[in-house]
């Protein structure tokens, strides 16, 4: 089998110790949550930390509970923990659907909420073992100089492939980041950056400890649609998270639309403003989907062909909005069933 390089392993029991260890390790250190992303990446030498600090035994990071008008979710909650929570399923549909569609049951049993938010960006030229990357003389994301997806580009175009981040942005969530000196919070949208290499605004000494999720008011609903080849374990090649506030029988008062896997960060579609004040008629949905789908500028670094992914973006956005209007995804055709479908949970 492929083997990781050699590294020191720390297993702190308190957040304070973890913060100290992380700061001490400096640029040699990396945090290990569920390990479902980091460990295979280490085997492929995409990441080569000399110090690995496990958060598994840190007290408090798997706690969850109400906090005023918000819910606090510990970053070390596994994705299975999350989908097993009835209140997540009932109230935060977009997050539930996103978490439930990450990888496979086995990986959700290990993978965590915080880990999924910090998921390394992905690219067909990067997600390869060391020998393969050596054959192409590497790429700028690791050990090389060029972006093979766009050789004239100065930046890295690896794709944000987290399922939970688009959902949490649509839901208006924040994250809490701790250091040895204290804690700060910021919106999930601000936690993400549009750069394939520096794809998070997290400082190197910060640990993501909590996700803070607003408790939805009456009339709020959300969903998450994921496009992938197989309903069983693929990363998203395109995803749509949508949230609206609309009183029964009334007009939309507020809306958020976020596209995942179209850039190095989740992309907020301003076109969602076009939903406000409407009753989500077919015309409105199609116009908004048309405009929002222009944000999808696929590159040839993931599954499916570019042109098709662009067409699919419009279709997916339309479908997600129809679902929020109240349409049954089951009636929207086989791809809709796939995209809105939940892999069996648990």
């Amino acid at each position, binding site marked *: *089998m*492929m*083997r990781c390089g*050699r590294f020191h392993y720390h297993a702190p029991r308190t957040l304070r110790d973890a913060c100290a260890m992380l700061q001490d390790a400096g640029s040699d250190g990396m945090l290990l949550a569920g390990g479902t992303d980091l460990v295979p990446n280490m085997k492929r030498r995409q990441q080569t930390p000399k110090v690995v600090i496990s958060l598994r035994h840190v007290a408090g990071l798997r706690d969850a509970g109400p906090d005023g008008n918000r819910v606090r979710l510990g970053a070390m909650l596994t994705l299975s923990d999350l989908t097993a929570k009835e209140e997540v399923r009932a109230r935060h549909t977009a997050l539930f659907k996103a978490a439930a569609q990450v990888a496979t049951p086995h990986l959700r049993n290990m993978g965590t909420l915080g880990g999924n938010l910090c998921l390394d960006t992905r690219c*067909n030229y990067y*997600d*390869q*073992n060391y*020998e*393969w990357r*050596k*054959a*192409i*003389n590497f790429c700028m994301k690791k050990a090389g100089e*060029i972006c*093979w997806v766009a*050789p004239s580009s100065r930046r890295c175009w690896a794709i944000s492939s987290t399922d939970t981040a688009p959902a949490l942005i649509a839901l208006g969530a924040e994250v809490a980041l701790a250091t040895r000196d204290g804690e700060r919070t910021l919106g999930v949208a601000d936690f993400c950056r549009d750069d394939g290499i520096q794809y998070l605004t997290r400082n190197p000494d910060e640990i993501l400890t909590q996700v803070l999720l607003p408790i939805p008011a009456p009339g709020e609903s959300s969903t998450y649609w994921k496009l992938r*080849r*197989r*309903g*069983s*374990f*693929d*990363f998203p090649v395109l995803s749509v998270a949508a949230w609206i506030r609309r009183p029964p029988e009334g007009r939309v008062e507020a809306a958020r639309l976020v596209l995942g896997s179209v850039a190095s960060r989740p992309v907020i579609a301003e076109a969602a403003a076009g939903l406000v004040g409407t009753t989500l008629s077919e015309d409105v949905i199609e116009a908004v989907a048309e405009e929002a789908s222009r944000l999808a500028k696929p590159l040839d670094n993931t*599954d*499916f*062909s570019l*042109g*098709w992914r662009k*067409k*699919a973006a419009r*279709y997916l956005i339309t479908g997600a909005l129809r679902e929020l209007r109240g349409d049954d995804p089951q009636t929207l*055709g*086989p*791809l809709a*069933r*796939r995209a809105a479908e939940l*892999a069996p949970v648990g």
Partner: protein
Amino acid sequence: MSSRIAALDLQVVGKPRRRVDARAKVTGQTRFADDLFLPRMLHCKLLRSPHPHARIRRIDARAAVTAPGVKLVLTGVDLPIPYGILPVSQDEHALCLNRVRFVGDPVAAVVAVDEQTACEALDGIRVDYEPLPTIADPEEALTTPQPRIQPYGDGNVHKKVALQFGEVDAAMASADRVFEDIFFYEGSTHLAIEQHAALAAVDPDGKLTLWSSTQTPHYVHRALSRVLGISPAHIRVIATPNGGGFGGKSDPFNHEIVVAKAAMLLGRPVKICLTREEVFYCHRGRHPVLMKLVTGVNGDGRIVAMDLQTLLDGGAYGSYGVASTFYTGALQTVTYEVPRYRFRGCRVFTNKPPCGPKRGHGTPQPRFAQEIQLDKIAVALGRDPAELRKSQLAKPHALTANYMRIGTMGLGECIDRVVAGSGWKNKHGKLRFGHGVGLACSSYLCGAGLPIYWNALPHSGVQLQLDRSGRVAAFCGATEIGQGSDDVLANLVAEVLGIDPFDIRLVSGDTDLGPVDLGSYSSRVTLMMGHAALQAAERARDLIAQAVSASLEVPASRLVFAGRRVFDAEAPARGVSFAEAVQRGEAMHGTLGTTGSYTPPESAAKYKGGGVGPSPAYSYSACVVEVQVQPETGWVEVEKIWIAHDIGRSLNPVLARGQVEGSVYMALGEALMEEMAYRRLPRHLSGVLVHKFPSLLEYKSPTTLEMPEVITYLVENPDEAGPLGAKEVGQGPLLPVMPAVANAVYDAVGVRVDEVPITPEKVLRALGDRESRRCGPKSFPFIVWPEPLKVAPPWEGGDGTAVNEKPRRRKEGVLMSPDVVQPGLAPHPSTPEAGQKTESSESSPEMPEVLR
């Protein structure tokens, strides 16, 4: 037709049973090659080429050799003798001598105390390469004779074959309609869940043992003897249970030879387990094939002539490629009557991992073409596709135009079953837009009529040894690759001796302990090993019956072996237990042991190339696929599949159904998503040609969640050529599924996708092309074909020979090389033994400098 065997009263055969190795498999106790550990075992890793095509100038392994924990570094010069599965393609070296031909070609091996140390030591080997231009696809290979990837063949053309059965051009000219289509079948890989692994050890007496996840221990045995230069009698190959093979473990592999050599040099066991990436580089999977199929039909759609051209992308080595090339033409004649037939095939070399046999070996590609074209013919002539096929089925018990001898032929019944089961008549052409059904048929071999190397010996042998305890041990070289060959062996022996399959001790896949069986390929095991098992068991039964007859004073002909007893058919109470019966046999005859063996009948195809295709029997399959296609996105959802398979007789229906469903699963992967795709970087920046995604995650293959409902019908019409009438089931049911999906997509949305995989983007492209309503290849390159060998079909006075063929003398191949006897450990590679034969196939004899 086969009333004698059809009427047999069977106790074990045909009853759904738990397979004999099920308990071990489901409790995790099956020991695969990578589960084996021996005391003082070392671990091996291979350094692979990062270049798609390059000359090796220099290898500096000094840093690796001196690294702590490293025991040995091997390079090409240590294993200079070439090998290859086919005698005509001895073009591989265990480690590349002076040339690498694809990204992943192995260059050096490190053996160390553990895998981690071996991995790290790979970084200590510096290889100086001189990159060479690359060939990425067949059209490039045809037009770029230099630089040559292999020193044999013609430029970068590996092999051209041309065969003609009857005056095809004249028949085509007289046809009412001529249909001409071009199809492309993308390459795919086996994706066995178990990665290849091997462990070699030198026994205390100096003999070599190799445990390996191989489908063909006998051929590995031969290759080891050749490359290592030691007597085959001093080599033992044990095929461990394979975690899936599908053809991908049928070649002798470089890693097997490397660990064997290392174990000999070090006197310690050496193991290797490949990573998934490395398995992609071993490949030997489905050839990508471009096809031009021209078929002439009369007014009601009956075929009058067929003319097929195929162009195969072979990758960098020969492997089974010559056979694969012939297979793209050989079985086009066994499903429907084809009075005249021309086939021309061409295989080229490219700088990619070698292609070879994958489930269906060379036949799914032209089958895809033929079955889609028949659908087009049906549409053009306004005929029902099922009826069109049924009206011109190949005749049973007859020869085809290319001299394949068909036995029983259950395709008509297969079609009837799936047509009835699926409600075809109410669905085809009648479902609402976006919904459709498609039908296709196929046939496959029950074992190749000829072995890989020419010899006159049996293809399979079984030995039984019976003990006074009543224990029966069955020994056979056949290889359990998950398909259930052990169960077939136990099943047939138990049937004849009237005992339970679980009473039998099985020893299989071991070249020291069992008689030779050629291996688990070409769907040959049930038929060939089955006959050998029956013969051995019948001989044992006769010996026992003779003794029991004497002691019970009952004629042997009246004795029945059943329920672990041997008794008088006319007075069942009068009998003895099986163990007592064996004791009486042993008392009369001495220690009881019998053998059985099987050699296929001689083929009717006497022309050159006629060695590929003949089989003792052919299985048949028909399939209906129902799909939903979303016109906005081109998304194809396979909703349900009905498949009927003419198996002759099902020995264990549980296993047979498992093979059918497994075939459908693998077929859907090829139909909808699997692609051995390669990427060439921008030419002005790099000369690299790499596999696009050698990983289980990004190489898309369906999972259980993607599987639709599958309704399986086993059509049982015993064939005299099979053991108790049994035919194959491991490969045939894969074949009709891909074209049936394509035909269903047409029925749903009215467009043709004439290539696999049938992806949503291709469906959408076809929907968008208002003129052609099609997505697929548009042209077939011009190939200068040799004059075809001309063979008159049987109904035109032919005798199976070609009129324009020079007389050939079939040379008896070297079975093994028993003259090279070199017991014990070999000398260290730094002092190559004098007189060691080096048959380098390299074009340039210039060898790299090796420092270590």
